[in-house]
């Protein structure tokens, strides 16, 4: 019975923790502009993240080593450094966006300006990263993130023409007023939002934090193959509700408030309150994850002790990095930059950094030196290779598309 609860908790946390500010904003934007025409990209991204998360979770469980730890071993220090710079840069950008997202969500319920919230949010994030237990952070924020199910409920309540929505998704209907370049740009952005690099690195480091062993492989796979797709369904619900409520009015989403309007229409004040709770939990949880990821990446490249599974005194470099990036993120946000714009940029650059992340994972998950007998099967390798090609295409196309479309104008 206890085991059942442990598995259920893992799955629920995976669902609630799947969505972050990138998913929130990008899915709402895309839903409002294209309806569900780009939904297949979300499905593609979710399958991809499941595939690679399972690989990196397996590496962590069997070898006790986190994936980024092994990047330098396999690719050498120079490429490892390039990987480190890319990962840290993109994840730090995402970290800034997440903290901004928390501040924007709190602004929605209190009317207190976002900039006034930034220092408090940054302080709260740092305190949690310094002091709170890893599993406590993950479980509490993950469960609270389940509030975002309100979007699925709202979509149901709105009673849309399901046939029409399904038709849009399957036939990839592009609205006549949009160009193919913009369509591709948002496809790449959605792909980057679904497969953000920090997620796999965090997942494997988290596995080491929680002391997974080969016996936990089944639970880990349940989390990944049940939890992540259900989280992906939440993303689609956000896109769908935006499509049903906002697209007919020609409303483009560029604020967090507009993302919540469909819930207001369907479920009223209670719905909005739950949605905002979901926003806060999802972005706060993601802020902790991205912050930790930056620390993990740095310490795992250099070889220093990292993690919350030891006392802070035993991992000084790691905690120093966490403090510095929190201060830096607060500093950047206090210049008044719009967190939504930071989110949009971070999602595109996530797409660019994807090959650096996923190529090492594919190689390492095949190496018996690390995973013993649990090497990738043929199907996993085939899918992994296909995705590597997809990822390369997305990475190469991302910046040209961003320039050509003026970030999706």
């Amino acid at each position: 019975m206890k085991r059942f609860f442990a598995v259920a908790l893992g799955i629920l946390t995976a669902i609630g923790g799947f969505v972050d500010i990138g998913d929130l904003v990008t899915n709402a934007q895309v839903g409002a502009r294209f309806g569900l025409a780009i939904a297949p990209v979300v499905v593609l991204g979710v399958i991809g993240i499941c595939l690679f998360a399972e690989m990196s979770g397996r590496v962590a469980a069997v070898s006790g080593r986190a994936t980024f730890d092994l990047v330098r071993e396999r690719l050498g220090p120079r490429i490892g450094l390039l990987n480190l710079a890319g990962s840290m840069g993109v994840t730090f950008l995402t970290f800034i966006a997440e903290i901004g997202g928390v501040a924007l969500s709190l602004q929605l319920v209190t009317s207190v300006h976002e900039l006034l919230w930034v220092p408090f949010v940054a302080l709260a994030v740092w305190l949690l990263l310094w002091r709170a237990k890893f599993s406590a952070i993950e479980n509490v924020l993950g469960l609270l993130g389940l509030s975002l199910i309100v979007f699925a409920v709202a979509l149901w309540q709105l009673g849309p023409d399901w046939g029409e929505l399904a038709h849009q998704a399957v036939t990839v209907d592009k609205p006549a007023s949009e160009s193919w370049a913009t369509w591709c740009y948002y496809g790449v952005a959605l792909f980057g939002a679904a497969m953000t690099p920090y997620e796999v690195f965090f997942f494997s480091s988290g596995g080491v934090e929680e002391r997974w062993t080969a016996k936990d492989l089944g639970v880990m796979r349940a989390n990944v193959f049940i939890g992540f797709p259900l989280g992906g369904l939440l993303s689609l619900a956000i896109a769908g509700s935006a499509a049903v409520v906002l697209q007919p009015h020609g409303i483009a989403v560029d604020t967090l408030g507009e993302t919540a309007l469909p819930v207001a229409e369907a479920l009223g004040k209670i719905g909005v309150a739950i949605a905002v709770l979901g926003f806060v939990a999802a972005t706060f949880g993601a802020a902790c994850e991205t912050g930790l990821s930056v620390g993990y990446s740095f310490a795992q490249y250099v070889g220093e002790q990292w993690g919350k599974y030891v006392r802070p005194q035993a991992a000084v470099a790691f905690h120093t990095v966490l403090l510095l990036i929190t201060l830096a993120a607060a500093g950047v946000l206090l210049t008044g930059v719009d967190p939504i714009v930071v989110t949009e940029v971070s999602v595109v650059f996530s797409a660019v950094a994807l090959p650096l992340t996923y190529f090492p994972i594919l190689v390492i998950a095949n190496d018996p030196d690390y995973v013993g007998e649990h090497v990738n099967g043929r199907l996993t390798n085939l899918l992994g290779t296909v995705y590597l090609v997809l990822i390369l295409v997305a990475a190469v196309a991302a910046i040209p598309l961003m320039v050509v479309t003026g970030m999706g104008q």
Partner: protein
Amino acid sequence: MSAALPGGRFEDEMDLALHLLDRQVQDAEGALVGKVDDVELTRAADGALVVSGLLLGANALLPRLWRRGHELWVAAAPQRPGQHVPDRIDLALVERLDSGVRLRTRRAGSAPPARALDPERLRLALLLGSPVTYEGEPAGRVIDVRARPEGERGLVVRELVVGRGGPGSMLGYDRKADMGPWAIATVVRLLHRGSWVVDIGQCAIDWTHGSVAARGPRRPLSQDRERRDSRGPGKRVQPGED
């Protein structure tokens, strides 16, 4: 030095760049000490190179990232004794090597600064990546170094692996016959089809300029696959939660 040789992979022939370099070093309790940023080789009386220690720290890693930049930095900075000396872990402190290095002792005090510069103590990084000429013609670079345990002498360098690309760029596909995924394995093997292995006795190594002149019989790399099954990642130790 007659302490028992380390166990694990140290018990067989190994590739220093692939199996030892850049590996995580953990102490006896599982706490993380650092990465193997470089390997110290000592020239024995008969001229053979023996692995004598692990080098850690920025002073060991920076020359590998950008040798010229590091040389300029060393030349430009004020000279203090021991300033550019890396931290060193004597091989006697190493218990075994699996997917990472496990030490016999605890972290504290295991990696003091290396002893003063000694012409008989050399670094693996100076050898890796050095251009190689075979019977006068340029023939690639040193991409790996093979060492074998030889009883009392320790881990002795026996062969050089030469080919295109940087050290370790074979990603381990050369040693394991059927490591997937198929596409990557094929690409790597294609890129390295011209790689070859030569006995170190046939090589004249210029340590000052970092170049190697080889001659005599050599064999293609593709003939070498690991004979034993992989050992797997080894026993795990993690520090307890406080």
